[in-house]
């Protein structure tokens, strides 16, 4: 009597779209794995969960999760998600997107959503380049790194994403690598249960492209880099947490309480609406 073995998290994945398109050793699959693990442990109501993604390899994640999902134009998942969350604050809206999508073309939307403290959650797969289009430089590409558009070495200073998120006003900011699977899962759970704008940066391997150009040809080599360079420091100063080849500071950076925009907005609307209704009826 042979029963077909089914992965315990398979129910969170859209069977018709699997297997996913990601390369061998790509960290996107790990991020997806930790995400569905987190929603499984939280026993989330999938009907209320909306996953929004932008353009990029990680952007395909929205299609793989078996919930309401939307794949927007490049850079716009946060703006789209703002509309969804305000129209129906009961929905849990999670953005899973990449470093280029969220911080280059989408940078403006990120800082304003964080400033407003709207209760959407952002999980950023930071693989230091634009993988989907073949490995161009991005806003997080390290100095001296080789990419297809920095063939002589990158001279642009990269963003420190956790610093940017913290400075913009996020209530929860964390950074993990795809090696820290358990911490990442716990962090995602915390992210989903907090009020306000939350952000997790996940340093992720792109061995086929970024790794190959920068002397880390396999996922294992990139993960070994994470293992050697990362150090867990909770609530350290995000301004000092720049990623260098020698040092990747991971952990939680910000965990504060601040009332969310949609709560404030809907309270105000209810107050004004009540007054108006009292006046006319």
């Amino acid at each position, binding site marked *: 009597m042979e029963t077909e073995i089914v992965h315990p998290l398979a129910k969170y994945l859209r069977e018709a779209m699997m297997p996913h398109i990601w390369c061998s050793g790509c960290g996107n*699959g*790990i991020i997806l*794995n930790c995400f569905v693990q987190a929603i499984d442990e939280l026993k989330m109501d999938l009907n209320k969960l909306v996953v929004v993604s932008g353009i990029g390899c990680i952007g395909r994640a929205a299609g793989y999760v078996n919930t309401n999902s939307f794949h927007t134009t490049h850079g716009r998942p946060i703006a789209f998600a703002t509309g969804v969350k305000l129209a129906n604050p009961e929905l849990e809206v999670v953005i899973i997107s990449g470093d280029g999508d969220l911080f280059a073309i989408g940078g403006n939307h990120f800082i304003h959503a964080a400033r407003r403290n709207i209760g959407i959650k952002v999980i950023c797969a930071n693989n230091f380049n634009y993988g989907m289009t073949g490995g161009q430089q991005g806003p997080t590409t390290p100095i001296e790194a080789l990419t297809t558009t920095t063939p002589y070495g990158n001279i642009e200073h990269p963003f420190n994403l956790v610093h940017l998120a913290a400075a913009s006003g996020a209530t929860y900011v964390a950074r993990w690598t795809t090696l820290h699977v*358990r911490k990442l899962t716990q962090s995602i759970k915390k992210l989903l249960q907090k009020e306000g704008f939350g952000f997790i940066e996940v340093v992720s391997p792109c061995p086929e492209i970024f790794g190959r150009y920068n002397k880390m040809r396999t996922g*294992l080599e990139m993960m070994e880099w994470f293992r050697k360079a990362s150090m867990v420091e909770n609530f350290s100063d995000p301004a000092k947490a720049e990623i260098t080849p020698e040092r990747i500071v991971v952990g939680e950076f910000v965990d504060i309480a601040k009332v969310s925009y949609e709560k404030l907005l809907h309270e105000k609307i209810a107050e004004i609406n009540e007054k108006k209704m009292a006046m006319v009826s």
Partner: protein
Amino acid sequence: MPVRLWRAPLDTQKVKPPKAEIHILKDQCKGCGFCIHFCPKKVLEESEEINARGVHPPKIVDESKCILCSFCTSVCPDFAIFVVEKQCKEGCQT
């Protein structure tokens, strides 16, 4: 640092450590090697066989060594391996 026990725990007879059941969905594996490399008990190794994707999926070396840490389950990007606790029927031997 792991605690070194100087004698066997007093409730060894009562407490049965969980037994692991490792499932490998061979054809889903893309051969990244994360599970093999990062298993703390070195329970897995690369097999000789080639799966539908043309890579070598992992094979179990010694399932009894597995401590159910589930690291392989979480770190696999392709949902190709998972560990569950073996359900022991009443009266089975450890």
